């Protein structure tokens, strides 16, 4: 589904990704872990097409298309979804209105007829139940005055509504208490199926207790330095990131 090949990227003059290689197949969950500043969020942003980042080398293929040639909205249309670490607020724009616009824009991109109010409402009810989101939240301005947990739950709700092929969760667990993490993770688990894939970006192992990954990759200094199964996450939790740093230092 996704094939990242020797990807390099920088912001302003600073090179952050220094040759990422990663393959994700349909039905898989991959976790990217790593210390602060290793480039985890940059990878998520580059895949979504954030304009501040400049790709300086390598390629990314997504469902047989050159992802780097597509605008951010085209990538969304193709099925890339990014759950933001810091979701933005838009005062005066109701969350419902925003999501309906998004759903219909994506449908338009895919050559599907837009949902009318009745169809949209039906879909919304179904997904609201799935991710346990309170409907009063959806009548409020987008993310305005939402608590950290509400913002993240809203991200997962949008993901449910947009039914992406590849969902990238950028530190979705940061700042959440354990109950909120469980609700968010339940939502993600319910959305998993054999046709879609999830890329989890996280600093801590605890999210992986709830969303169990098929593969874990350790990102350090702009490169994936170690890959393994979920056992790798436990090892990291136990030994800390220093052991990776030391390993890398020894190899050098």
């Amino acid at each position, binding site marked *: 589904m996704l094939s990242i090949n020797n990807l390099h990227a920088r912001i302003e003059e600073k090179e952050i990704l220094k040759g990422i290689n990663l393959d994700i197949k349909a039905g898989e969950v991959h976790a990217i872990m790593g210390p602060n500043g290793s480039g985890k969020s940059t990878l998520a942003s580059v895949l*979504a*097409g*954030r*304009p*501040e980042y400049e790709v300086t080398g390598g390629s990314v293929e997504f469902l047989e298309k050159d992802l780097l040639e597509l*605008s*951010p*909205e085209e*990538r*969304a*249309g193709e099925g890339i*979804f*990014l759950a*933001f670490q810091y*979701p*933005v607020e*838009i*005062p*005066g*724009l*109701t969350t*419902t*209105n*925003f*999501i*309906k*616009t*998004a759903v*219909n*824009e*994506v449908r338009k*991109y895919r050559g599907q007829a837009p949902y*009318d*109010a009745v169809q*949209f*409402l039906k879909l*919304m*009810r179904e997904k609201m139940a799935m991710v346990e989101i309170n*409907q*009063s939240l*959806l*009548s409020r*301005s*987008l993310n305005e005055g939402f608590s950290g947990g509400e913002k993240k739950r809203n991200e997962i709700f*949008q993901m449910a509504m*947009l039914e992406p092929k590849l969902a990238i969760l950028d530190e979705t667990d940061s700042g959440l208490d354990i109950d909120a993490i469980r609700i968010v993770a339940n939502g993600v688990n319910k959305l998993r199926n054999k046709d879609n894939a999830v890329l989890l970006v996280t600093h801590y192992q605890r999210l992986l207790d709830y969303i169990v990954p098929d593969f874990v990759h350790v990102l350090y200094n702009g490169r994936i330095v170690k890959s393994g199964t979920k056992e790798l996450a436990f090892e990291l939790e136990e030994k800390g990131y220093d052991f990776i740093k030391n390993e890398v230092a020894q190899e050098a």
Partner: protein
Amino acid sequence: MKSEDVLEPQLEALDEDLLTIHDTVNQEYKYGFVTQIEADSAPKGLTEDTIRFISAKKNEPEWMLEWRLKAFGHWQKMEEPHWANLHYPKIDYQDIIYYSAPKQKPKVNSLDEIDPELRKTFEKLGISLEEQKRLSGVAVDAVIDSVSIATTFKEQLGELGIIFCSMSEAVKNHPDLVKQYLSSVVPITDNYFAALNAAVFSDGSFVYIPKGVRCPMELSTYFRINAENTGQFERTLIIADEGAYVSYLEGCTAPMRDENQLHAAVVELIALDNAEIKYSTVQNWYPGDKEGNGGIYNFVTKRGICRGVNSKISWTQVETGSAITWKYPSVILKGDNSTGEFYSVAVTNNHQQADTGTKMLHLGKNTRSRIVSKGISAGFSNNSYRGLVHVGKNATNARNFSQCDSLLLGDKCGAHTFPYIEVKNNTAVVEHEATTSKIGEDQIFYCNQRGISTETAVALIINGFAKEVMNKLPMEFAIEAQKLLAISLEGSVG
């Protein structure tokens, strides 16, 4: 189920919103056409003879001519004001045509007799003059250049005792009301542009709602400048007698021309005991081209007086047009317990300049006022809010709340806020809040990531920003106004 009750109406409104946003992004000023029609005009320039010419053309009574000449005398002694945050070349008042009327039969007895070219013009503007086709129940007075062309629904309104006609007709048919109220709120000496208007005003709308009558439909005037080198000077007078209610809308457009055209209107509102007037404007005069050539100079004096107890006047404006806007719709809160409101969205793009706001003059006891101003600036434009809250020494327990928010698109435009507060009674509570924000790249990217194009994202963000004001507009206008916001800011981000 409870959730259905809350969600469904919200969604229906939403469908229409989105439709209009999609339809309208990527459009330019679409009202810029000129109607080829023979006009009957005064020669260029302004002298006493010009005023006599206008008055004679309109078959006015002697008292009206005298009133005009008196205003002209004052105007000649006055100087054009320059305190506003506006910059424009000197206006040559002798290079303007002060009267232009489409040539047609002197008196139109029914709508069928209107020149088909004119009828087409209004159809192109989306204004139907055919009463039977009006589903929404809005009565329209159409004013082109200097004269009123047609007023619809007159008879139905007449049965309730409501007078809705052109000012010219009111001068002839209701001279007592006109004499009693004309210039009672905006005196002929009030300011330079008001004096000029009094001298040369050609037409406008007149509304009288009798005691205890709630006007059953929206009344609306549609102003159109067509002829070249012509100034438009209309005058509107609305009186709501005791216990009456009226909601009034005005809309305006003009052709695209390279030279600037002057528009100096006066609007006076009078609310007696327990009366309420709601006045909404969607101003879309031609703003000039992207380089700042052409466009309307819009110098307007709008003022209402809550003369009676418990009366209320509410101004709502969406200002997207004009090269220059100088406009401060105000309320004199004279009656005890009276309320004044001002809700404004002013959009400036390219080289437009707007200096707009309000004055709330609290004179009576327990008077309340609320000001919500939303300025959106893009391109190289300048957008200023200027507002005065005055609490007189007898205005015990006056309350004011003002909120002025500015939204910037890009870094070449300006937003300014000039609030003036004068309080002479220590029981007053006056609150002022102001914010300035920019449409962030983060907000745009967030929308993009959800599949929403940048143009649509900007439309969503500005409509969200302006929502509190847009909600105050009558439904028919709210949709038009949303479209306008999107069109006005086309191409300003991205």
